[in-house]
């Protein structure tokens, strides 16, 4: 009986030790050598400009692209020359490399503020509307849409902007390949036709 009580006590002791280790000691040890996340201060938001626009957004392309750039540094020439004289490359590359993944969206549609008075003709219950040409209205790649996959060397803000601009161009090209413009054009016409039909016009022509 006493032996059984001793075993139970030891099990409880072991369980308490385990709990203390996993819940207190190990989490503390894990965080003690972890870098604290840098938080930005709360600063005011200033309104710089308020602009009246008239953009009919009819299609959005959600996409993911990879953009990468390698820049030769001062040390690159030395490393390359040295490695040329060895049977296998010994020194690691001194080139700067940045590979980013961007997940953003491209908005396409029509800038209705370009619609002129002559673009709208009304006669009794018929209406003709000549819409402006469809275009890419926006390419949205926010900081939260980017992931840095590889970053070797020091990259200045301006150099990173160029890589991100490359990602943006790729996204636009991909959206155009997906025929976003003809689709956006057809959808814009459909929206305008529905709008005018809903107003009671019997004969509607949008082109």
């Amino acid at each position, binding site marked *: 009986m006493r032996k059984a009580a001793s075993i139970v006590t030891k099990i409880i002791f072991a369980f308490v030790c385990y709990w203390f280790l996993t819940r207190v000691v190990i989490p503390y040890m894990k965080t003690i050598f972890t870098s604290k996340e840098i938080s930005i201060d709360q600063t005011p938001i200033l309104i710089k400009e308020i602009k009246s626009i008239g953009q009919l957004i009819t299609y959005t392309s959600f996409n993911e692209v990879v953009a990468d750039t390698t820049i030769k540094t001062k040390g690159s020439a030395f490393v390359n020359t040295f490695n040329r004289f060895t049977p296998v490359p010994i020194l690691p590359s001194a080139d700067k490399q940045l590979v980013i993944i961007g997940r953003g969206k491209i908005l396409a549609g029509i800038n209705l503020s370009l619609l002129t008075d002559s673009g709208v003709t009304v006669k009794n219950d018929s209406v003709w509307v000549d819409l402006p040409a469809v275009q890419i209205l926006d390419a*949205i790649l926010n900081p939260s849409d980017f992931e840095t996959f590889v970053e070797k060397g020091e990259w200045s803000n301006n150099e990173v902007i160029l890589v991100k601009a490359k990602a943006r161009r790729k996204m636009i090209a991909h959206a155009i390949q997906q025929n976003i413009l003809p689709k956006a054009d057809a959808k814009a016409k459909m929206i305008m036709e529905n709008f005018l039909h809903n107003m009671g016009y019997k004969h509607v022509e949008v082109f």
Partner: protein
Amino acid sequence: MQKLIVIIFLLFFSCGKKNNAEEKPGILTLREMSDLATVEYTVTKVIKASDNKTWFKVGDRKILMSCEAHIKAGIDMSAINKNSFTITDKNIEVLLPAPKIISVSLPAEGIKMEYEETGIFRDKFKSQDRDALARQAEQQIRNSIDSLGILNQAKVNTSMFVTNFLKRLGYQNISITYNGSLRQNNMQ
């Protein structure tokens, strides 16, 4: 007895929770929309941060950046139907859907480095670090959108935009109301 305790320990350790939280990729595709954006706000914000909270890193790092964001607001045209119009001769009443935020954009070109100070024992801010700070700024801007009054401005601009369009169609007395609001913009 000691073996028993060791076995119990092993059992406890082996029953740990596995973190299987995998990020599901979003659906990347073309999507139809029917949004009419009528107002665009350009806002600026200073991104200010100091990296001095990690005890084992000797020296501080400070960074000051500025960013510019473009916020568009407008209405969803797909919510407009036959019941949205009441027409009597040259008079028209239009019931439009409540305005909404259409997009928030922080282009990379709008994020500028203003000042950086790095202690001799510290590395400079990497592109990844700067992105993380810009992400926080983006979140702060998103959280403050309501206080910018952009939705009210969107109502004003949408009313103006629709009025101009209806005038082109020959209507003279135009009344515009918004769903979910009692505010009425009469434009004659």
